[in-house]
């Protein structure tokens, strides 16, 4: 049973080749898996383990360390309401309660239609714009309960530019062949990397 789509599998192979050791590609591949499904299933971890030549347990260990890798199915839009100090003082609790009422799920839950997951979160480094939240990690500032409703309406329509949960960016980086410097395993590094050479010396 294969997890990655054919297209993503191809991409995975390219990503693996960017590293001197396949195992180093583990986190990029976890991102790729999350991009494909919106979350990371056990099947995804098993396949990543195979691709990078390690055990599924090792992939689980890495994956579960990062809160932003979701190991349970989440909504298309993950809304994190900041509940840390500045936001709390500015009404984050009310906002979160409103959000729960509006979406009909408790924090941590996902709506039945699979559209929204609502979570309470720690400080999002936008304390001057409290209370704030993130939709798939994109900030929305000084959010009132009313504004929350319009965010939900906006996301429910097609008229917005928030990509599905898991999509890291809308422009994929592509390294052309001639710019790819190749990989050297750390133990085989004998000289400073090219970019550290003097401007004048030949490279």
């Amino acid at each position: 049973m294969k997890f990655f789509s054919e297209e993503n599998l191809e991409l995975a192979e390219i990503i693996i080749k960017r590293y001197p050791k396949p195992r180093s590609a583990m986190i990029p591949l976890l991102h790729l898996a999350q991009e494909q499904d919106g979350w990371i299933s056990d099947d995804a971890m098993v396949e990543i383990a195979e691709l990078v030549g390690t055990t599924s347990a090792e992939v689980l260990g890495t994956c579960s360390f990062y809160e932003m890798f979701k190991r349970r199915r989440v909504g298309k839009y993950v809304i994190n309401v900041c509940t840390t100090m500045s936001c709390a003082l500015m009404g984050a609790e009310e906002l979160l309660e409103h959000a729960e009422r509006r979406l009909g799920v408790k924090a941590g839950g996902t709506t039945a239609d699979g559209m929204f997951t609502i979570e309470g979160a720690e400080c999002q480094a936008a304390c001057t714009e409290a209370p704030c939240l993130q939709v798939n990690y994109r900030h929305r500032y000084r959010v009132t309960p009313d504004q929350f409703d319009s965010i939900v309406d906006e996301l429910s329509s097609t008229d917005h530019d928030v990509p599905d949960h898991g999509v890291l960016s809308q422009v994929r980086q592509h390294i052309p062949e001639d710019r790819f410097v190749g990989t050297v395993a750390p133990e085989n590094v004998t000289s400073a990397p090219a970019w550290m050479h003097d401007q004048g010396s030949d490279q």
Partner: protein
Amino acid sequence: MSDVPPNEVTVTINGTEFEARPGEMLIAAADRAGVHIPRFCYHERMSSVGMCRMCLVDVDTGRGPMLQPSCMVPVAEGMVVDTQSEDTKRAQEGILEFLLVNHPLDCPVCDKGGECPLQDQTMAYGPGESRFVEEKRHYEKPIPVSDLVHLDRERCILCDRCTRFADEIAGDPLIQFTERGNSTQILTFPDEPFSSYFSGNTVQICPVGALTAAPYRFKARPWDLEQVESTCTTCAVGCRVGVESSRNQLVRYLGVDVESVNHGWLCDKGRFDYEAVNSGDRLVTPLIRDNHDENQLLGTDWGSALARAAEAIEQAGPQRVGIIGGSRLTNEDAYAWAKLARSIIGTDNVDAQLGDGLPADLVLGLPTATIADACEADTVLIVGPDLKEELPILHLRLRVAATKGQTRIVEIGSIATGTEPHAQRSIRCRSGEAAKTLVALLESDDPLADQLRDGSVVAVLGRASMAESATPALEVASVIRDRLPHATFLPALRRGNVRGALDMGLAPGILPGRTTIDDPSEPLMNLWQTLPEKAGLDTTAMLQAAAVGQLDTLILLGADPLRDFPDRNLAVEGFRHVKTVIAIDNFVTESVSHADVVMPSTAYGEQGGTTTNIEGRVSRLAQKITPPGSTRDDWMIAAELAWRLGGDLGIGSREEIWCEIEQVAPSHAGVTIERICGPDAHEGILIQGSSVKPTLPTPQEPPVVDGYGLRLVSGRKLWDAGTGISHSPSLRDLAEEPTLKVHPGDLQRLGVSSGTAVRVISTRTTETLLAVADDTILRGTAVLPFNQPGGGANRFIDATALVNDIRIETL
């Protein structure tokens, strides 16, 4: 071996100057200086990680004292260390208070209680009271992480010992830290258990009761246990173990750290098969075939059993008696039997190996290497069985050495082995063609050829498959002797004390002390007086002779030829035609059930003496419990038989036997009983030197497989249907049912789909087996494990053939 001169760095530990080794961690230097620094995560056989902070001490390197984790700080010149300063004490109290925040303190119901580093160090260095009043973490208690290991996450202090072991040492990173922060916990991947052959070691090194071993859980409390140091004889690596018993039952083995052999590790088979010794199925009285009912074995007394045995031996006459087995025996037992056979019965038909090893002259005559030599050689060349399955701790030592870059492993063989993931090169060839492949490699311009020619080489040599004769292995030895004359050898023989049995003369033509029957030592002749005139038969030849009625009495010394000899058909024929079978064993194995006289012998832990590992290292065995029923030591049975045959072995105790061995066995001269009983025996005493000259064949072309045939390859698995495992309740279900593994391409060619039953035809039999596709199998090859529950490969094998081919057909 480092190039830096040792003892170069002067550090002051608690006011006393100490010469430390450059690069050494402070905690290790303190250990050597006799100053104990408390620790949880540090382990001298694994890398330092600084997880627990228990080892904080005041270190002054000129900038004033600072708390530093001594397991992470290498010694430096002029370093001043105080392990008892006020700050250190406060740090220790603080760390312990933290470690106990989430610890359940369920010591009264914890297996580790009484020998728990957390308990002990809390008593010694802890604050006495905790300020923590909140709710602790709660997890389901305990969860099995494998069939043998249970995990209680509440007790875990996250020291990373088990996970580091699994990754660094065992190479099975199947347990991991998962989640993070307060939720950090050790787990396996869902439905992928920690099924490592070495999992039991994590239980031993866990500094708390988080990991417990299923076979030992709630069996005893540490303060009820007594321990003696002994040597594992489950395989021929000979790991050092601490044998522990409670109420005259073996309850636990612990690995003991010796530099030369096991570094403190044990494999799970060696660690847990003590259950067999305690088994209620043990043979405890002699048995004798019922005169009235052929199918019955009746209990009898020793006198009658010995008389019947002696009668059968006498009636047969020396040429028509054969003795098979002896690798389960101690050196002393083996010597007694070797002496009985030659000087009293008068036969040289003795063989400790069951047609699945290497000829004794090869084992004893080739230049030898130690495990340490192998771990330091430029190249280890493995041509033989899958070491992970057959000699697990040898595999572990080589794996660790290879992953650290101390050696490079090259293997030549026909199947994917446990060595492959860390080998520099794994060269696949068809079974029987290893010598040819090696020659081709050495004649090529492959840089590997230069590496082998120019660097040091240790060859680990054994039988790669039960379905090929010893000849292919002999050919490899001959190529290596010829083209890599600097190479030394480590024989990959599997049975417990097989090396000791050969050293003691339990092989045709071989006498104790690595001498041959044509050239006995003088002291031996003085004591033994007579010897058979010419070399006798090996196991295969004995069974062949028996099958054609040329052998009347067969003595089995802990041997089960019907299950263990590669060719079941031949063994069955031999048994059918022989007049009397005398079996000496711990259990009623299949072969024992066909015997006419059965004598129960003592088992591991019930006998003292010595054993010899594959390197030729003699180490001590310890008696820990009293044997059950009327079982007797094998040497006593030999002595009794001698007496009934009108002779006298002249031995009265194991110590007396050793003294005699030291006198008559040239290679063992100087290894006195004092040395055996002294501190030398901890690391074992390496026996070197031999006067046996091996005979090596010139390589031949093995027969070609015809278009329809598949070459059969059969190796052993760690978990198999062997006697010890079948009688160990915790282990017996670990052995998988046998399947025939074939390359998917071959299956397709034969029109068979994977997972279906097929008819398997060999020259010996036609039977039905499950065929499974496996793309790691070489084309034209079929792999069947040798001895799994539900049927062994021995049914298909002709032991007289160089290699065995089979055909498969759809049903």
